[in-house]
């Protein structure tokens, strides 16, 4: 019984790890590329990106609302709108961001669900 519960739990965690990658492939990879390299000068990289660490708190809202206007990543300016991903739930955004923050050469802190939900409450109103 205990073993069964443990197996189920492990299964659950394993699935959740893949969840971030799945959400990435479905929503982000066609522009940011499978390896997070982006498109030179046009679409900013997620790989080894300073922006991810410096905008940790803003990222959940940026994913949900998209970006309009200029941003600077690793010293290079980009100015191309990113479409919003309004349909993503908070848990999907958390898994997605944890995937990005810990892959593509990034070694940043993971988010807790609580954290992501909190940040999403204060998204800027346009």
């Amino acid at each position, binding site marked *: 019984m205990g073993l069964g519960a443990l197996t189920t739990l492990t299964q659950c965690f394993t699935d959740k790890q893949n969840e971030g990658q799945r959400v990435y492939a479905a929503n982000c990879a*066609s*522009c*940011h*590329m499978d390896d997070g*390299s*982006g*498109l*030179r*000068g*046009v*679409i900013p990289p997620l790989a080894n990106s300073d922006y991810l660490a410096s905008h940790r708190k803003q990222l959940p809202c940026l994913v949900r609302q998209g970006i309009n206007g200029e941003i600077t990543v690793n010293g290079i300016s*980009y*100015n*191309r*709108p990113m*479409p919003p991903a309004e349909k993503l739930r908070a848990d999907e955004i958390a898994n997605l961001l944890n995937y990005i923050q810990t892959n593509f050469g990034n070694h940043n802190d993971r988010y807790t669900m609580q954290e992501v939900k909190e940040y999403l409450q204060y998204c800027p109103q346009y």
Partner: protein
Amino acid sequence: MNRNSNKSFFSNLFPMLALSALLLYGCNGKSGSGEQTLPILGERQVVERQVNGQTVEDTTYLTIPSFAFVDQDSQQVTNQTFDNKVYVTDFFFTTCPTICPKMKTQLLRVYDKYKDDSDVLLLSHTIDPEHDSVAVLKDFSERLGVSSTKWHFVTGDRDSIYAIAEKYLVPVQEDAGAAGNFTHGGHFMLIDGNRHIRGVYDGTDPADVDQLINDIPLLLKEKQHEKK
């Protein structure tokens, strides 16, 4: 997503072209020296004519018709721009949220490889000329950091662009239901100095683009032979 429709375009067209390529290889491959050559793709017609009382067969190949578009420097780009050059062409739009970024990443590889070879040019047509003005294309190409004499991003009359896409055998269409409102094939077409299509590649597949990069020298070699 319209990715699927792009893929299905591809799966319809690709076997056909691949097959014709395969069939043609047999003929062209035997051109004496045993050197590898690229087939001429597309429909062909055999026309008979009389020369000194003898019947001679002429084969006419699918030829890219005359065109005139405007590039990111407001310069006119026509067939003459590509006379005696080898060029790679594709169809895209700058706000495309699906396969275009991947295509542009791959086309950049071709650009980087042949940056210093003035016989190789690139030609990207927008299929959204209403949005993709000269200024938008200029901004796009400058951000990519590519030279406008090497890589022409062109816009022009909508119908002319869609008509020429058909000639290049690339499916494009407006589609209000698709992401970004357009669907189009992610093909790169390789064109020789005689306006013939010599190769078709999936611009979203790095392995296929490797093939393109390797095929270009075969056309450049033909060119050298012609000069002699």
